Each structure stands twice: as C-alpha cells, then as structure tokens.
C-alpha cells in the first residue's frame, strides 16, 4: 500500500512505509541536495515525502544516461523489444499497487483503472515497434553513381524529458518509453502533481531487464529544473509536455546552445501516433559504399 496516512488509526503490526527516492543509473539514491517536498492527499493528509531533485542530481543522471546509451543502442532490436514488453509484464503485475497509489493521489477509481489499462496497452504497443520502425522508415536510395546507398534511423542519444502534469502513469510512460524503444536513454522529470507513480514505475523498470541508466527518473520542481534540462551540453534532445509559451521560449533559447532537438507536446493531442514519438527522437544516417562497376557507372541500386 502506498498510503501512509499518519492521521488514520493504525492496526498492528505497523505498516512499513516506502521511502520514495529517485532513480539514477539503476540505483535508488536520495537527492544529493537533501531537500524534499511533501505529497498530501485531497484532505491534506500526509502521504509521503518525495525528493526535490537538484541540478546536480540531473547532471548525475545525464552522466548515467550517457554511459548507458551506446550499450542500449547496440542491443538487438529484438532484445529491446522483449525488454520493453517485460516492462508491461512487470507493470501488469502491480495493477493494484498503482491503482491504490493513484487513488491516494486523488484519482477516481474508474479513471485510475482506465489509465492503468491504457498504460499497459501503450507499452505493449511500443514494444512491438522496437524492431519495426527501422524497416518502415529506412530506404535504399537509387543514387546515380555506382554506389550502394542506404538510410536508416538511429538514436539521437540522451533525451531530457519533462512528463505531463496530469497523467500520473500514462504521462511518464509516454515521456520515456518511445525514447528507449529507439535506442535513446532518458532523464525524466516526473509530474509534480503526481510524483508517486513515477517512483513506483522506476521499480517496474528496475525489474524489467532494462540496464541501469537507460531511464533515470527525478522528482522535483519543473520551474527550477527545466532550464538545466534545456542547457545541458551533453543532452541531445528535449521533450516536454504541457509547457506554457513563456517557458517554451526560455527552453528553446537555451536548447540552441548545443542545437538540441526540442519537441513540445500537449497531453490531449490526438494527431500524433505513437510511432511519431519514436521517430522524433531518431536521426537518419546514410551510408555509401562503392559498387564494383555493374554494367558501367550509370547503374545503381
């Protein structure tokens, strides 16, 4: 049970409450800053303390994400697909845990159930994309010279991600799973409003054969951290949900310091398909190699 209301009557034995920590490099440290913020239920009752992550936590997480990136990208697409599928398995197992947590944070039961089911669906859908988007979006290019030439999508690298505020579980899944399907690694800031599910989701990831550092999850204050997400020189792309125009401008200006790819999404947006979130975090790499003259230089593949 996620609930640990100190106000309620306790039955013996006393519940052993979980300490909500952040997730960096496959480990669950507390924030280095020692700061915390309280999460309270709708009636103002205490639920838990969560870490108020610092810039230094973010920087540590980027180091972990960078260290994990090449190895994760080098995994076979089949292996990445199975790993993401296992995330769905681990999540499904914890249905009651997540739903209880959402209820504690103020969700209605039907909404919690709907979001949980949609979340599992989404991960299973994404798992299937891992070994397919490359085929769909690759090409062999019929160049006019005697060369074999092909283009394939490849991971952009390390992605900084600011999750939606209003979807406790689906928001964090959307903010990290498409990126990792495509071989990227992620540093994600959880919803300020619903941080608990993000930490519990980290426990799902930690038991899903996902190498440490592929997804790193911070809890904390968006206004404090977003400029650091935008300015870090070893982050290749930034994705963020539900950002107001003022913040978007501030983020974009800093993101230009190292030509980050930036994408701003709205939670309700139906025009994007799941695979679009994968492809936005891909580069297209084109490779050339000479062909020993096939019927003269005019021919090509």
């Amino acid at each position, binding site marked *: 049970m996620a609930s640990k209301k100190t106000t309620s009557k306790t039955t013996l034995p006393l519940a052993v409450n979980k300490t909500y920590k952040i997730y960096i490099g496959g480990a669950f440290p507390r924030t280095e800053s020692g700061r915390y913020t309280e999460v309270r239920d709708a009636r103002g009752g205490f639920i838990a303390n969560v870490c108020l992550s610092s810039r230094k936590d973010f920087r540590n997480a980027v180091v972990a994400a960078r260290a994990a990136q090449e190895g994760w990208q080098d995994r076979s697409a089949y292996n990445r697909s199975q790993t993401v599928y296992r995330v769905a398995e681990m999540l499904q197992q914890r249905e009651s845990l997540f739903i209880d947590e959402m209820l504690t944070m103020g969700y209605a039961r039907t909404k919690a159930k709907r979001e949980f089911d949609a979340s599992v669906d989404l991960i299973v859908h994404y798992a299937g994309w891992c070994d397919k988007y490359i085929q769909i979006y690759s*090409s062999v290019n019929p160049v006019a010279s005697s*060369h074999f*030439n092909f283009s394939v999508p490849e991971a952009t*690298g390390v992605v900084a991600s600011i999750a939606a505020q209003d979807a406790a579980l689906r928001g964090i899944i959307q903010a990290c799973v498409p990126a990792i399907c495509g071989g990227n690694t992620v540093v994600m800031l959880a919803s300020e409003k619903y941080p608990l599910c993000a930490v519990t989701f980290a426990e799902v990831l930690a038991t899903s054969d996902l190498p440490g550092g592929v997804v790193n999850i911070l809890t904390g204050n968006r206004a404090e951290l977003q400029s650091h997400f935008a300015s870090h020189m070893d982050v290749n792309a930034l994705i963020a949900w539900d950002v107001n*125009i003022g913040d978007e*401008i501030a983020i974009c200006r800093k993101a230009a310091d190292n*030509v980050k790819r930036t994408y701003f999404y709205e939670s309700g947006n139906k*025009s994007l398909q799941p695979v679009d979130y994968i492809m936005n975090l891909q580069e297209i790499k084109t490779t050339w190699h000479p062909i020993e003259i096939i019927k003269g230089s005019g021919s090509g593949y």
Partner: protein
Amino acid sequence: MSKKPDKISWQLSPAPESTEHITINKRYGLFIGGEFVQPLTKKYFNTINPATEQVLSEIALAGERDVDAAVKAARKAYTTVWSKMPASERARYIYRIARLLQERAREFAVIETMDGGKSIRESRDIDVPLAAAHFFYHAGWADKLAYAFPQKKASPLGVVGQIIPWNFPLLMAAWKIAPALAAGNTIVLKPAETTSLTALKLAELMRDAGLPDGVVNIITGAGDTGKYLVAHPDVNKIAFTGSTDVGKLIQRSIAGTQKKLTLELGGKAANIIFEDAAIDQAVEGIVNGIYFNQGHVCCAGSRLFVQESIAVEVERRLKHRMESLVLGDPLDKNTDIGAINSKGQLETIRKYIDIGKKEGLEMFQTNCPVPAKGYWCRPTLFTGVAQSSIIAQEEIFGPVLAVQTFRTVDEVIDKANNTPFGLSAGVWTDKGSKIFNLTSRLKAGVVWANTYNKFDPTSPFGGYKESGFGREGGVHGLQAYVNLT
C-alpha cells in the same frame, strides 16, 4: 652516367573555359513577384571574382521592406495559385526547370566558377549537373507525397524562407528550392552575399519556365537581410545552411514561434584509414575529402585518422599526391584547387594556419605557384596533431587537413566521435565487417565507406548533434517541407 637527362617540364598548357557565351548584367535587382525590381534600400553591393578581384556585377541589397515585399509576393502566390494547382502541374513546372538548367549548364558552370572561385571541373561536373538532378528528382515527388508518408496526410507549410551559403551556391539553391516546390510551398530564398549570381540566373530560368509569379522569390544581401527573413511573421519555415554559430542564433530567435526549422550546419569530419585499406584509393579519398572545393565543404574530411602502422607510408604518398594538385585559374580545365571564396575567408584560414604553427604542429604545404592577384591557399596539412589542438576541433572551411594517428578500432571511434559536430565521416578498409562496425558507431548523418564527398538527390543529407537537424534529399528530406496530420 656523367650526363644528366634533360629536365622535362610536366607543366600543363593552359586550357581555359571560354567566357564568351555567358552574360552577366552590370546590375541585378531583387527577383520578387516574377520580375526583377530595384531594392527599396536603393543600395547595391559589388560581387567580385575571387580569382582576379575584378568586379563582376552590382547586386541589390534587400532591406526589411524588400524582404516584406518578397514574403508578401510568396504568400499571394501560395494562396492564389500554387496551393490550388494540381500536384501533377507543379511537377511539370519543376521538370521544366530541370530541363532548362541542363540546357544552360555550361553558362551556369562558368558563372559559378567566376563568382565563387571553384574550379570549372567541379562546377561543370558536380555542382550544375547535381542541381539539375535535384530538380528532376523532386519534380516527380509532387504528386506522390502520399506514398512518402504512410498513414499521414501531407500538406504544404506555406511560405518558406531559405538561406544558403557560398560554397555551393547553385547546388544549395536547387537543394532547397526543389523539395519545397514539390511539396507545394512558395519560397523566399537568400543566397550568400559573395555568390548571388547563379541564384539570380536561376531566377531568369524560373521566369523562362513560366513559373507563376511569386512562387520563387530571390532576395540578395548579407546577414541582416537573412535576419529580416528569419524574423518575418508570415514565414512558416526557415531552412538554413551555414555556420553552426548562425544556426544557433536562428534556433534561438524563432523560439516560441510556430516556424518550422531545419539546420544544416558545420562539421569536422573524421576520415579514418585502416591498415588494410587500399592505400592509393584512400589517398585519393583523403584528397577529395579535404581539398575538394578548396575545403569549403561542411562535410569535408578535415580530421584524418591514419592507423599507426601505415602512417609513414600514407603521409609520403599523400604529400606526393598533393604536389600534383594544380592550383590557379578556376576557369582552367586542368585546375584542381580554385580560389578561396573571399578575402574574409582567406583571413580565417590563415588565422587557423597560424594557430597550428603556434601550437607547435608540423606543417606541410605544396610548392605550387600562386597567382599574384586573387585569394589563394595552398593545400596544407598538419601532422602530430592532438585531440586538443584547435585545428582539430574547429571548422576551418579551407584546404587544411589535421592528421592524427591511432592504434585500435575503439580508440579511433572515441576520437572520431569526440566532437560537438556530427555531419559526416569516412572509413577506409577492405574488411566489410569492420566497415559496418564503424559506420554504425560513428555519430554522423552521412558515412562514406571507401569513398568520400559523394552527393545525390535521392540520398538524405544532414547531421547529428551541433551539425544541425533535419535532412535534405531523398524521401526523408521531404518531411522538412510538409505538415503531417
């Protein structure tokens, strides 16, 4: 033998391309709404031949109101004509442009060489034919966009602003205009201030093709003109090719607007030679990688990595090959190395050569004679370069090669990727599995294996990291010019 053999001169006789069949007007206005008009600024600037320093023509300087007029013309053409036209008709116009360019290929090549300083061999065999090929390839996409984007509806963006550099003036114009037109957009294009002529000749050709007025507008000027175009509120997309610094300024300046952006920026490409490579071919590849177009190439192979076991041999053969490069009159068909594009760029290159010397690196330059007039730089290489050397880190955009050595595959991959850029890379080895190891681990948008500096309209081009985002060319390049819903 007491008697020495007579000294044989291997000097090539001059073989200059004729300039008689071309016309360059004394003065060019701005191409707005289908006609050449005087700039509202009433100002003009000279464009010169960098090989002779002679003035070729006067070019209009577009100010803020001129840019506004061009965007208005483009908007009008978009709403009244171009967006309503059947896609197959758009295709026909673009095919026409391709054909007209092929017909006037010689003229374009000569003017490109006179205005920009590149050798006629390159403008004739690469720039102009490739420019025509870009129009021809993209023409056919106009009525086939639905096939390029499965499950999506592609619609044009509207008015696109395009800013291009001086290293491949006509080719970059074609590279930008062709896909934008095919996708149904109208265009305001700004060429670089030192190389406006072929873009203006291209405007003549748009007119001859009967392209509806205002579909393509060409405005000339320097950085400020570009700034006005980027800042114009009625431009839907900016496509920029140029330096990383300016690219970052543009990315910052459009923050929060709905403008789409593609950036094709600088590079510092690694060209990697393994001990099992075909050495002579690799040496040709090194030369083509860095001395092609005087090194004014964003994807130039400016960092050479040679495996230690063959470093001495490669260096010997490379220097020998470099000595045979002919530097001089760009219009001469024997010329390999033309003029540096501008005085300013020559100063930049010299600054970096001085830095290299000050860093204590060993420099080699060929012995070729250099004309008295014009801007020239002999093919140059530095050996003993470290990762920390400035000439190994910053883009020089000139015929200057930084040579480093390596021992292992992992080492060279680390070194090659240790740069903020990621536009291109080269790999030379006869071992297929090694090629694929390298090509999959190099963080670069274009990887040439056992070849270098090859381009094709069907082949997407563009970078990772600070070399920009978005692709140009091929099916992937179309995405830069459409809205997908």
